[in-house]
């Protein structure tokens, strides 16, 4: 399988790999996917008092496209409000990375990871009840 140069770039030099400290303030975590499907994404966001995502980190178990998709969204969510972050769509991710059809599910998973992280943040901060995010893993 041939990967686009953008996927290769994110794969070789992933942005924002890591984990925030457990005690860090304003941190929320979204974990989506399942090992049996071949992809697990963990996206963490750090939200400041104004409700703006000021930092993001990820860890991903998955193919190059999954790693690239999660790396890309850590860049994209930074500086966005939670609601703005929720407007990021998988089609944009897929387009940016030139994902082939068989890898579209990676971009879907990345979108789901954003939703899960935002939902986690809102749940922690009492804005709404923790809602399970329906994800579309194992479609690949």
């Amino acid at each position, binding site marked *: 399988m041939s990967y686009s140069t953008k996927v290769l770039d994110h794969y070789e030099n992933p942005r924002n790999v890591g984990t925030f400290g457990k005690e860090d303030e304003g941190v929320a975590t979204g*974990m989506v996917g399942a090992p049996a499907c*071949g992809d697990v994404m963990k996206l963490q966001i750090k939200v400041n008092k104004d409700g703006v995502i000021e930092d993001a980190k990820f*860890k991903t*178990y998955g193919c190059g496209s999954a790693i690239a998709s999660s790396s890309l969204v850590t860049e994209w969510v930074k500086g966005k409000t939670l609601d703005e972050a929720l407007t990021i769509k998988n089609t944009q991710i897929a387009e940016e990375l030139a994902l082939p059809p068989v890898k579209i599910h990676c971009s879907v998973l990345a979108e789901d990871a954003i939703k899960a992280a935002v939902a986690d943040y809102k749940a922690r901060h009492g804005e709404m009840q923790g809602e399970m995010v329906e994800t579309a*893993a194992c479609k690949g």
Partner: protein
Amino acid sequence: MIKTPIYLDYSATTPVDPRVAEVMIPYLTEKFGNPASRSHEFGWEAEKAVEQAREQVAALVNADPKEIIWTSGATESNNLAIKGAAHFYKAKGKHLVTMMTEHKAVIDTMRHLESEGYEVTYLKPEPSGLVDIEKFKAALRPDTILASVMLVNNEIGVIQDIAALGEICRAQGIIFHVDAAQATGKVAIDLAKLKVDLMSFSAHKTYGPKGIGALYVQRKPRVRLEAQMHGGGHERGLRSGTLATHQIAGMGEAFRIAREEMAAENERVRSLRDRLYKGLSQIEEVHVNGDMEQRVPHNLNISFNFVEGESLIMAIRDLAVSSGSACTSASLEPSYVLRALGRSDELAHSSIRFTIGRFTTEEEIDYAIELLKNKIGRLREMSPLWDMFKEGVDLSTVKWASH
């Protein structure tokens, strides 16, 4: 300086040995006759080469040259053996036995026969990849006409006890077919002793050319087949089509070399494999797939836990290796062979097959070990599963969001 990518995929295919290429080329150029041409020197010369190669192939497996039929490769041999025998003996019964870990050429052919009304039992191997003799015995029925078990598995390299299986089949009058595509040059084969009726061979897994293979069809006791390819009546009517002299001559030479050099070569290759195994054992959470004792010397199949298979392949692009078998690696399905062994999908996905060969060097093995240590480390750094494992979380108890 190491030249990359390093080829560690000798079970997918091998380069043609230079000595083999040298034998082949004259039959492409000046000795180009059609071996079926009986009216001139060009034809006789080609026919002579074909018969000499037949002797060379027979010699490696201690068979009579008359028992060797040329085909276009092991896939065709498997098709001809299984369909040919099943069709010929259908009046005797319509049940066949094989294993879940056979090559696709056998599995798909069995499926084809099922669509024609035959019944097939697919035996599950033990977690070691080996067949349990008692379970094999139990699968045989009065209407079983054929059993097919590969000598060496293409993915995990385990060697089945075909001597014992052959005895069982012979005692019950069941035709025994063995796919030996991965075995030639690695395992000694003595067809004068083995109770094997049909055996498939391939040239390109043993430093011969692609597009040529053979089928051993035992004469005493005689096994009958219904031909699958018809025409000019070549190969005593069992397989029609102009014989590809250069490919046949190449296969003969490749098998001659295998016979003369396999003992020494296997020792060398085994020491390289063991070196690789020792090096990779230093990495945490690696699991060998398949029995380590009953195994060909050039194969190492390892799963790297908590690392996803495709990203692993991408990370080690400097190594030409397989994840799953070459024939199925275009799909995202985990290897059916590893699943039959009871491996989880995750471990099946993160498995790598290393197959070492005639031209592999110690430097290449050392390079591969270092590369893997680095890359596995890096991918695990990135893996949330590795974190959880390190924190002591039992991943099997986690409720994943998607399920």
